[in-house]
């Protein structure tokens, strides 16, 4: 039977209250959101906080808001809410693609975007998605709010820039006209972590060429976007030959480890194949939404 080590439990009533509790209880206190990463770690005694600060009552952090050129996602937004949102599917299909394959539907009822990003598991999908979409993390602490790019937020496996007395409160994603995105993951079975996954965001110019692109990989030892593909793709019309070249660059740029999910060469193969697939899908979606717009305007 897996039972966590003893701890004290307190429920925060607001963001300010959560920050005060973190301040009061110090380094041995941990925030719990959906709890589907932290509680399993506590059951295995990999985590042994003295205080658990439950932020599930912070409904003020459960929102999805299209605010001008930005989609604002509250940190307590559940995976299920993201998956079911029409705005998310329309603006950022990469999020819907990823959410469909994050854990299973029941876990998605509890897990949150904030919890996923703060857990920073190297096989976690939304970290890659947020890197690709150039999301900004809004972190609040006693000294106020700071805005962090994903490169600054995500320090590495299980490590973020959120200090012990701070809370991730919002994720902001810039909305780009003419842009589309996609995510694809290979997993051994439903609910498992990725063997490997890839995400891409593409913006097409009026002449159909690629004006902006970002590709990210999950679970293959790369904590940043595959920036190497940009030079190859930008300014070019999307073609199969280009996707092949990008896939090759992605497979070379990553650094996977052999484990029970597969050997290194298989994971490199997946990085290659999945990069091609997500670029193909993102370009197809961007072209389709451009022709929709043309039809509407015409």
């Amino acid at each position, binding site marked *: 039977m897996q*039972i966590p080590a*003893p701890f004290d*439990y307190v429920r925060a009533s607001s963001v300010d209250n959560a920050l005060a509790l973190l301040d009061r209880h110090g380094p041995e206190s941990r925030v719990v959101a959906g709890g*589907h990463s932290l*509680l*399993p770690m506590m059951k295995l005694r990999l985590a042994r906080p003295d205080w658990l600060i439950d932020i599930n009552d912070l409904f003020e952090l459960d929102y999805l808001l299209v605010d001008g050129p930005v989609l604002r996602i509250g940190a307590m937004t559940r995976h299920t809410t993201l998956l079911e949102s029409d705005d998310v599917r329309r603006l950022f299909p990469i999020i819907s693609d990823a959410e469909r394959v994050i*854990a*299973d*539907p029941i*876990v998605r009822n509890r897990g949150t975007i904030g919890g996923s990003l703060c857990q920073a598991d190297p096989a976690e999908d939304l970290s890659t998605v947020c890197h690709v979409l150039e999301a900004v993390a809004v972190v609040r602490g006693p000294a106020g709010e700071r805005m962090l790019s994903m490169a600054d937020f995500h320090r590495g496996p299980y490590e973020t820039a959120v200090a012990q007395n701070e809370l991730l409160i919002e994720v902001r994603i810039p909305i780009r006209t003419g842009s589309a995105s996609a995510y694809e993951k290979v997993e051994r079975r439903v609910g498992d972590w990725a063997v490997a996954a890839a995400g891409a965001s593409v913006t097409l110019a009026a002449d159909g060429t690629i004006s902006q692109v970002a590709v990210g990989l999950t679970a293959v030892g790369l904590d940043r976007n595959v920036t190497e593909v940009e030079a190859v793709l930008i300014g070019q019309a999307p073609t199969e030959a280009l996707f092949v070249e990008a896939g090759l660059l992605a497979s070379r740029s990553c650094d996977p480890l052999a484990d029970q999910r597969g050997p290194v060469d298989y994971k490199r193969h997946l990085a290659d194949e999945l990069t091609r697939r997500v670029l193909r899908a993102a370009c197809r979606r961007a072209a389709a939404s451009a022709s929709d717009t043309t039809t509407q305007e015409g």
Partner: protein
Amino acid sequence: MQISMTINGTDVTREIEPRVLLVHFIRDDLRLTGTHWGCDTTNCGTCVVLMDGQPVKSCTVLAAMADGHTITTVEGLANGATLDPVQQGFMEEHGLQCGFCTPGMMLTARALLDHNPHPEPLEIREAISGQICRCTGYATIVRSIQWAAAHPAGANAETSPSESTEHEVRA
């Protein structure tokens, strides 16, 4: 610490240790052993209960986190002596073999039908994809849930011809 919640329509208040998991609170403190305790690792889904109407894996929720919430376990599915259509469907379509996964499967089915009264077979499979039937009886579980969808008022109520035809076709 003291917690209070509504379980199957009854308000309960208990003194617990904060580290008690919801599954153990339900089984050991409340003696509602219809909720099963399986893998303990959020994989198998036999511990699924409804929290405010949504299925959750109760091995990965603290009892303290359910304080103030409404919980439904398999014991709360039937309305008095009348079985829920989902329970009737599992009987009609042989939705269980050993029965270990059944409580969780039925609660997920109930939540699915509350949310989507006419799910496609693929939507049913997606909804139960976080739960494992080690007897591998998935085909009959899907048919059981389809039966419940086709008989929203249960077996005793009159079923319209279109509904029963639809069910036959899908099965």
